[in-house]
């Protein structure tokens, strides 16, 4: 027997909002999408800014874990273009100066150091400055933003957009120490900060030590170092023939940047099969669109040196074989090694953390893979004053994860400095509100549009390739943004069932376009799933089960492919169904527990 669903537990409805649930920062996605459709761009931007701090940056570069999770992708070919809609809000907003949180003139007397000025540290500062803390940020680069500045190329993320959003935070009165390498945590601790946040990222690029490496000399570059040299104008050209080794997003940025710095024959060479590459499908598409071929199943073997100069590389061809457990091995095909000519080779085969500057006797314990021991909820290390977040905490991830962790670390720091337990986390702020306006009228647009996903227009290829700072994507214009916004199903407008009103007339069962609703005898989940109106094979999606009804049956709703169209509620003669908007906001520092 399944127990009746406890909808008072905020996690139940939260999970129904697939995008928000999948977002590491739990941005209220449908809420801002509706605001975009209503042309309230500034409001839409602020919903984002509160939650993810860098809407303009993320609207262009986010890894978008929300999109594969989007409900629309389960009923339509493609999910809503959630990420690019965020950009519509950022591009069309008006000034937000009057909406930024006030910063107290009188400080609370507590001092915090943030080491690294990437998105994780900046988020900590954003959350704690309005509470009256004094914050010092240290970074070895000349400006804030971390890898958003040094790694993500300008043709994907214009500097103005980054500067604007970094400055909203720095302008809160953060004290910056740029171009400063922090060389000792002990020394930092001795400065008597009340708390230290380590947001130094995963700054070390990996190098493949293959035969010929030494002779190849400066024809071989580490991808992330090279990208950062380009970003800071230390490098402005590359040879005509470039090999980029690796299949992740660094490889994609390296190859596309090479094309803009004089590379003519630029190739990506990767060991794994194309489908297994780490880069997102859209990143691979973007690279190929720019005329960059991807050679998969090629394992680099050696640098070929002639007369003391690198002329290219040798690769061994392999094929992927999978054992019974699905574990992959790359088995040589036995073909002759493949030689590819090259003037330059960029290694984009991964990044590592490196903490040479953290002494091992300052109370910060290190564990597996020489990584600090960090609590996954509080982000506190074994030294109660020292917190980690972003790539520094658990290895390379992405901007939105760094932001989410920054928020949580800020909550912990605030709790610690107020003398409370860091494990006493504040609950999320939630609100459930009926959308009923009249008998059959809703305050949200419940019609479900059938439009296919809109494609973001691009700058002409020849122009884009001749200027490394020219943004490739042009973003949706307002009218396309509106149409794309209308594809959103409003998954936060929940179907709420009130069993005492139901007369079991079946009207909701009959009208539901996607067969979500069933009245049947309760039972074990597997058996119950087999008896539902529509196939209910997606076990990741919950069943909403009511209390017993007068006939002894229960109402079971499979949340999987509900369109949130409200037809069940429109057809219900007794208003046993209602459409109610569920807002869920992760608690930030300063929201009392």
């Amino acid at each position, binding site marked *: 027997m399944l127990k009746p669903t406890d909808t008072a537990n905020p996690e139940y409805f939260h999970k129904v909002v697939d995008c928000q649930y999948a977002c590491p920062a739990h941005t209220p996605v449908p809420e801002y999408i509706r605001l975009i459709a209503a042309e309230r761009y500034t409001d839409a931007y602020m919903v984002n800014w509160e939650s993810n701090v860098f809407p303009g940056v993320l609207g262009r570069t986010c890894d978008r874990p929300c999109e594969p999770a989007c409900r629309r992708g389960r009923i*339509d070919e493609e999910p809503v273009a959630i990420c690019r809609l965020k950009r519509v809000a950022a591009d069309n907003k008006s000034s937000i100066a009057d909406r930024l949180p006030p910063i107290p003139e009188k400080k609370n007397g507590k001092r915090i150091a943030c080491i690294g000025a990437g998105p994780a540290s900046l988020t900590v500062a954003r959350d704690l400055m309005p509470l009256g803390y004094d914050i010092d940020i240290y970074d070895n680069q000349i400006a804030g933003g971390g890898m958003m500045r040094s790694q993500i190329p300008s043709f994907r993320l214009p500097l103005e957009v980054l500067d604007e959003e970094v400055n909203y935070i720095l302008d809160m009165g953060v004290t910056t120490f740029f171009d400063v390498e922090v060389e000792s945590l002990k020394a930092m601790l001795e400065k008597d900060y009340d708390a230290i946040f380590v947001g130094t990222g995963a700054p070390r690029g990996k190098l493949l030590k293959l035969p010929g490496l030494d002779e190849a000399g400066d024809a071989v570059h580490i991808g992330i170092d090279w990208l950062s040299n380009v970003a800071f104008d230390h490098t402005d050209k590359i040879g005509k023939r470039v090999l980029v080794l690796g299949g992740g997003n660094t490889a994609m940025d390296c190859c596309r940047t090479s094309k803009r710095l004089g590379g003519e024959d630029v190739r990506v060479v990767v060991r794994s099969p194309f489908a297994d590459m780490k880069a997102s499908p859209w990143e691979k598409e973007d690279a190929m669109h720019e005329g960059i071929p991807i050679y998969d199943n090629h394992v680099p073997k050696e640098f070929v040196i002639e007369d003391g100069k690198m002329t290219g590389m040798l690769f061994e061809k392999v094929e992927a074989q999978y054992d019974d457990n699905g574990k992959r091995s790359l088995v040589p095909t036995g073909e002759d090694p493949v030689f590819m000519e090259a003037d330059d080779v960029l290694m984009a085969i991964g990044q590592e953390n490196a903490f040479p500057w953290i002494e091992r006797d300052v109370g910060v314990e290190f564990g597996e893979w020489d990584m600090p021991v960090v609590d996954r909820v509080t982000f506190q290390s074994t030294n109660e004053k020292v917190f980690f977040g972003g790539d520094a905490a658990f290895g390379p991830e992405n901007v939105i994860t760094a932001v989410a962790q920054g928020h949580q670390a800020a909550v912990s720091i605030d709790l610690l400095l107020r003398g409370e337990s860091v494990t006493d986390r504040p609950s999320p702020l939630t609100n459930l509100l009926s959308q009923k306006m009249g008998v059959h009228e809703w305050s949200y647009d419940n019609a479900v549009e059938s439009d296919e996903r809109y494609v973001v227009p691009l700058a002409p290829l020849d122009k884009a390739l001749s200027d490394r700072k020219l943004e490739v994507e042009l973003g949706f214009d307002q009218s396309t943004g509106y149409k794309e916004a209308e594809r959103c199903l409003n998954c936060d407008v929940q179907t709420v069932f009130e069993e005492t009103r139901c007369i079991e007339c079946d*009207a909701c069962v009959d009208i539901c376009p996607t067969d979500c609703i069933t009245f049947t005898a309760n039972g074990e989940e597997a058996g119950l799933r087999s008896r539902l109106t*529509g196939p209910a094979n997606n076990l990741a999606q919950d069943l909403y089960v009511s209390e017993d009804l*007068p*006939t002894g049956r229960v109402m079971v709703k499979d949340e999987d492919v509900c369109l949130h169209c409200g037809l069940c509620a429109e057809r219900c003669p007794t208003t046993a169904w209602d459409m109610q908007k569920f807002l869920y906001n992760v608690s930030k520092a300063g929201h009392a527990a």
Partner: protein
Amino acid sequence: MSYQIPSFRHPDLPVNDLGYTRADYEGSISTLCAGCGHDSISGSIVKAVHELSIAPHHIAKLSGIGCSSKAPTYFLGKSHGFNSVHGRMPSVVTGAAMANRDLLYLGVSGDGDTASIGMGQFAHAVRRNLNMVYIVMNNGCYGLTKGQDSATADEGSASKKGDPNPFSAIDLPGMALQLGATFVARSFSGDKEQLVPLIKAAISHHGFALIDVISPCVTFNNNPASTKSYEFVREHSEATGTVDFVPMKEEITTRYHAGSPHEVTMHDGSVIHLNKVDENLDPFDRGSAMMTLQRHRDAGQILTGLIYMDRDSRDLHDVLETSQRPLNTLGESDLCPGNKVLQTINASLR
């Protein structure tokens, strides 16, 4: 207010033998009141026809006037349809069926449409054993004209705004039995488990098949004093038993053992199995069916399920020895067979 159903359907909808999903059998969005029993019956029709793998263009749905008679717009959107005059659906079906015996005729009517203005038409369709399914969406009132008592309203039952009904009710299954109907069943809009197999059996039946489906009118006749409300019907119905419908193609592998007394091979080769609950009912005996029906009536119960079925039914075409082919397929040579044939006919009359 939504005027359109979203175009999306469940991505894993099962397909039938023709490759169609249930969506291919839907109609447009209902304009009936929210919660109307008629919509559930529409849903059951869609489910039954889809599961039987009948091509939509092989079906003609016909109706008279009333909320119930509007219902065909809300199912089988790709089938033929005829919305006739109040109470006149049976004569339109008669004409159509005579002209084209290859279509499945699905008549949909209301209790007003059938038991008041259309009573005469109904009686003759039954009596002639027209090969059709006749579904009455029976709510005990004239829903479309704002809920006046109909001729099927039980004595003493009161609608939302009305006084207790002083007249005795017409019991359509009882009447149909009296008139010689060859398939009689009753069901409830709120019980799809019973209704869907009954619709399938009615479709497979060769001859006139009546299903009287009690279908609450939520707006005018779903109040506590009404005997056609969801609650009253749920509390007072008694099923004759359950019906399992086994389409012909599955028969070979079915687990039922052949020759059991409660198993009927239908005209089209499919089989229905009756799992009887009421031991006193012999559904193949008209007298027993009439007695059982009356007994339940006397006890204030509503008898549902398959009530009677004639296994040797001969429909109007059989009796009249009509053309085996639809008239629209007859060509000139069929219709004007020439002088030689005429001479033979003439000779036979001398």
